[in-house]
């Protein structure tokens, strides 16, 4: 591993800063000189920003600068917020994230109620879900899955970062959380 040059750090910093979407390691490698290792540059940049008002985080298959979570209460007063998803939409999203690809009927079976057009539209409009082809069963239902925007929005590197069901059950059910 060669030493990280300041020039590489500046270049990576500028590139990630400029982008509104996560920047992949591959994209970073393309503008860095051949001898620079993108992973090392990212880590150096990450530690430089640690504890600052803006941090480097992994999300949606790349890295992105984001404001530090602890500043949220004060920033919410001055920064335009995106619309919060209603509880129903969050549940539907969780079901899709876990069981993808799955059909509308399967979502409805898990939730025990019909999926409203409104919920489907809200998730589609926020680009959190997308059609993932049709199932070759009678009726050829469309199946749904989550998008990269879903990962980005919830600060997930990839779908494997979703907690396994066993881990969720370990939390004390319904006690202190409410």
């Amino acid at each position, binding site marked *: 591993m060669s030493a990280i040059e300041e020039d590489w750090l500046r270049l990576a910093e500028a*590139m990630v*800063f*400029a*982008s*509104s979407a996560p920047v992949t390691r591959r994209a970073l490698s393309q503008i860095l000189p051949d001898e620079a290792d993108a992973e090392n540059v990212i880590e150096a940049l990450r530690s430089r920003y640690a504890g600052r008002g803006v941090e480097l*985080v992994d*999300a949606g298959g790349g890295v*992105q*600068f*984001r*404001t*530090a*979570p602890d500043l*949220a209460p004060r*920033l919410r007063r001055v*920064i335009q*917020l*995106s619309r*919060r998803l209603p*509880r*129903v939409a*969050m*549940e539907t*999203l*969780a*079901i899709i*994230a*876990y069981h993808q690809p799955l059909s509308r009927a399967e979502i409805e*079976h*898990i*939730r*025990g*109620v019909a999926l409203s057009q409104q919920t489907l539209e809200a998730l589609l409009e926020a680009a959190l879900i997308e059609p993932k082809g049709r199932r070759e069963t009678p009726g050829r239902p469309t199946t749904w899955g989550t998008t990269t925007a879903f990962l*980005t*929005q*919830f*600060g*997930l590197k990839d779908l494997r970062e*979703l*907690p396994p*069901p066993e881990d*969720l*059950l370990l*939390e004390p*059910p*319904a*006690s202190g*959380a*409410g």
Partner: protein
Amino acid sequence: MTLAARDSDEPAPRDTLLLRLQGFEGPLDLLLDLARSQKFDLAQISILAIIEPYLAVIEGARRVRLELAADWLVMAAWLTWLKSRLLLPADQKELEDGAVAAEALAERLRMLALMRLLAGWLGARPILGQDVFARGAPEDHTDIDRSRLAVDLAALVSSYLRAASRGARDRLYHPKPLTLWTVQDALRRLGALLGSVPDWALLELFLPEGLADPTQRRAALASTFIAGLEMARDGTARLRQNEAFGPIQVRAGLGPLETGLPEEDT
């Protein structure tokens, strides 16, 4: 964190009962809430223990409003059936059926609970645009150059083929002209060759070379015969045929001046 917000243990007055019911998203939602309010371990939901309170809620709601949504009533009827199977089975098979059905329902409730937990887990993350923010004024360093054309010779040639074949289809029909040996052609050839032939020769020898097609050959023979007759009439050729359907022979005539009768003309 998601469900616990709804406390269900307070005794519900009748007029708020319906309101409470409307706060649930379908029977499964209410059942899960009942299961959790009884502090069951999620892994071991007792269906039997939640049937009674469910039926009580539905019964209470019906007293307020008769027109209760069908799915609530269907679930109530089904749970009543399930309860009878579990408590008063007619035989072993009914008991097993009931146990299987109860386990299936418990499994659905577990899955729903899990998904609630996951939704809560997702909601508790620092959400982009809610809790954390990306660059508000991103800069785009990308230039898009659209000046290049994606073309190649193959595409050009196939386009030509397509256009030409369609054009040909739309054009008027022109029958292909047959290239047959005309009488004029035969007159020219016979006139040129006959002078160099000293004696009688078969007429067929004066056909043009390389006639593979039988139609063209027969047409050329006919033309050459007519040319021979023509030349025999003005005396530049003489014709003879020794028998009917026999070969026709030809030789040079005495000249155009001698316009008498041809010697042989069958």
